[in-house]
């Protein structure tokens, strides 16, 4: 433990009177916590970033082929590659902790929500100026985050005039810009993967909680963080992906605020988010930490997530229609209700069963 420098000190303290013997807030079996955290990192987090980095690299190549040989087939292949990368990101996007939230990496991959259409305006400005510095992933990476991530790539491949990519001259500016965006995304993904891969870095901190650990002093703290990924991931699906455009039948609706509405990838992205939650829950073997009587809660949560994914998959990809049609709206209402149930079950069902009580989500910055 390293004591931090204190600029101006109060008096030295006499010995304290300890009213009771110390006992950690949550006591969990060390070996099991280590196994769960190791499985979470090695079985979900690292493979998730690995797959995302590979998908982004593949998209970079596919868009490169389109730039070199514009054609309908190569254009559609580039669109398909975007869909794959967007889904690959959504799968690991649920991890909103660690290196991804440092140095604006998350925003560089996905700048969303964007209520003021900052991304659209800035991408259009790059296009209208044919800013050559946006065609190199390295220089693009230093520009506004709104011009260099998945939102920009979606507009370039699916937005106004995007079909010109199939018939344009070889190496058109729009195509080279799109290729640079894909390359930038791949670079950021590789960077994050590298940080998780480093032997003495965050991976070790996550897998070996202890008194000298820079991330977690106890198993309870580690499990709080792991459960936090699931809770905050589920909250993000409900609050940031659905409620951004639909909050209920009597509320204002904003279908064009939905993520990836242009490419009709809203629901594939949501389903991939949910799939990420299911995969983390399963591969980490979090249920091993539960008393026998509480173990069924994991299956319950998994079933709730499956129901959410099924509902999401049943909603029309045409979001204008989704918010206008009563039948479609009912599906959205169901999705919101299912999301609330999942969050509650994770917090109180799983969290409560391992002794985190309702306090789990309370101690997060307030």
């Amino acid at each position, binding site marked *: 433990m390293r004591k931090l420098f204190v600029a*101006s000190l109060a008096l030295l*303290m006499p010995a304290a009177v300890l009213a009771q013997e110390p006992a950690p*807030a949550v006591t969990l079996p060390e070996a099991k916590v280590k196994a769960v955290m190791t499985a979470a990192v090695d079985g979900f987090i690292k493979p998730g970033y690995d797959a995302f980095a590979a998908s982004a690299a593949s998209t970079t190549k596919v868009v490169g082929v389109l730039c070199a040989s514009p054609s309908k087939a190569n254009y559609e292949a580039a669109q398909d590659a975007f869909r794959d990368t967007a889904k690959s990101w959504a799968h690991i996007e649920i991890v909103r902790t660690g290196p991804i939230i440092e140095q604006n990496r998350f925003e560089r991959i996905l700048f969303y929500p964007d209520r003021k259409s900052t991304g659209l305006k800035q991408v259009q400005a790059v296009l209208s100026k044919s800013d050559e510095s946006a065609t190199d992933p390295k220089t693009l990476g230093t520009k506004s985050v709104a011009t260099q991530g998945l939102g920009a790539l979606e507009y370039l491949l699916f937005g106004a005039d995007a079909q010109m990519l199939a018939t344009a001259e070889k190496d058109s500016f729009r195509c080279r810009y799109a290729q640079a965006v894909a390359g930038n995304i791949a670079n950021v993904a590789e960077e994050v993967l590298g940080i998780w891969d480093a032997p003495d870095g965050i991976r070790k901190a996550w897998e070996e909680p202890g008194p000298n650990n820079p991330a977690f002093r106890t198993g309870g703290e580690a499990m709080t963080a792991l459960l936090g990924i699931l809770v905050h991931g589920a909250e993000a699906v409900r609050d940031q992906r659905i409620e951004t455009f639909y909050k209920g039948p009597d509320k204002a609706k904003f279908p064009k605020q939905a993520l990836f509405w242009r490419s009709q990838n809203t629901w594939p992205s949501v389903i991939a988010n949910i799939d990420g939650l299911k995969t983390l829950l399963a591969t980490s073997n979090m249920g091993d930490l539960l008393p026998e009587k509480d173990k069924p809660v994991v299956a319950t949560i998994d079933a709730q997530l499956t129901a959410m994914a099924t509902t999401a998959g049943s909603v029309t990809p045409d979001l204008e229609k989704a918010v206008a049609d009563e039948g479609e709206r009912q599906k959205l209402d169901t999705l919101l209700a299912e999301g609330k149930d999942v969050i509650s079950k994770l917090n109180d069902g799983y969290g409560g069963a391992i002794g985190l009580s309702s306090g789990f989500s*309370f101690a997060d910055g*307030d």
Partner: protein
Amino acid sequence: MVWRGETIDRRAFLKAAGVAFTAALAPGSLQALERTDAVYASGFRAPDGSFGIATVSERGEIIDRVALPARAHGLAHSAATGRIVAFARRPGTFAMIFDALRQAEPVIITAPEGRHFYGHGHFSPDGSRLYASENDFEGNRGMIGIYDATDRFQRIGEFDAHGLGTHDMTVSDDGSMLVIANGGIETHPDFGRTKLNLDHMEPSLVLLDARSGALIQKHALPPSLSQLSTRHLDIGDNGRIWFACQWEGARNELPPLAGWISKGEDISLLDLPEETTVRLGNYVGAIAVNRREGLVGLTSPVGGAAVTLDAKTGAVLREEIVREAAGVAPAPSGIAVSSYDGHFNATENAVAWDQHIISLK
């Protein structure tokens, strides 16, 4: 109404509450009210998942409940008017003002467009103004909203909090100065409660002129402590302003977790013993000063601890293991402590107490 020191007078409370109010109480609650020497209020979550505010006896028994539309966080009480306000947990946009004696209808106010409440606020000493910490999330700056308590809490202005991630705020005893804890953490309602700038935080403590909003003094923390979020406040004797912190840096470091400032003086950070810092889990969730006894209470849900300090010297007088320790408030004797798992002083209730308690003094 007669006020006695820091505690509400029980007979005055019963008289003011009136027969109708006491008759409506459940027998157990009435018994609790008749026994009590002090009354607190705190937010809670009920077993069915609903949220509310409860008034609480000295022993920790629930006296009365007010339902809330969503989860609350901090509260403020005006001794002059008897009004209590409960602020929505960030990034909530409502605040409910009610009368603990149910003599006036509750008032709900909402944060204006482009703002949300940060969860804390304070009344002016005469009860005519309510100040609330707010987020101007497009401008990425903390603000203090000003509401007219004499006119159904109309919003009548705002001051720049001179920092970001504004959290707790309070008012000097004479009403001349606003004291603000800028936690330094950027958040945006579009991203829920996600902390957006942990690698470049800007915590600070700020004093403002309550009339003009003019900056009196601002204390930033040194670079080595830039990840020390200054979040909660209480005022002790002689204008000493105590603050409590939450460390967002490496878990194996031992940062200072509390300190004080006074008008015209530099910041003082408390050098707690290493075992106390460890016990507090680098995270103090609430702070309260018992002026009469010269005590400062700190609680940590992360470490599961309640710590009592000597307000003059900063010496640790007592440490108590309190699993999921939540709120803290001055008690007639010592410091009152609640917990997420339902404990409030000597009583266990079937609710999850939220992070803060106020003393209805």
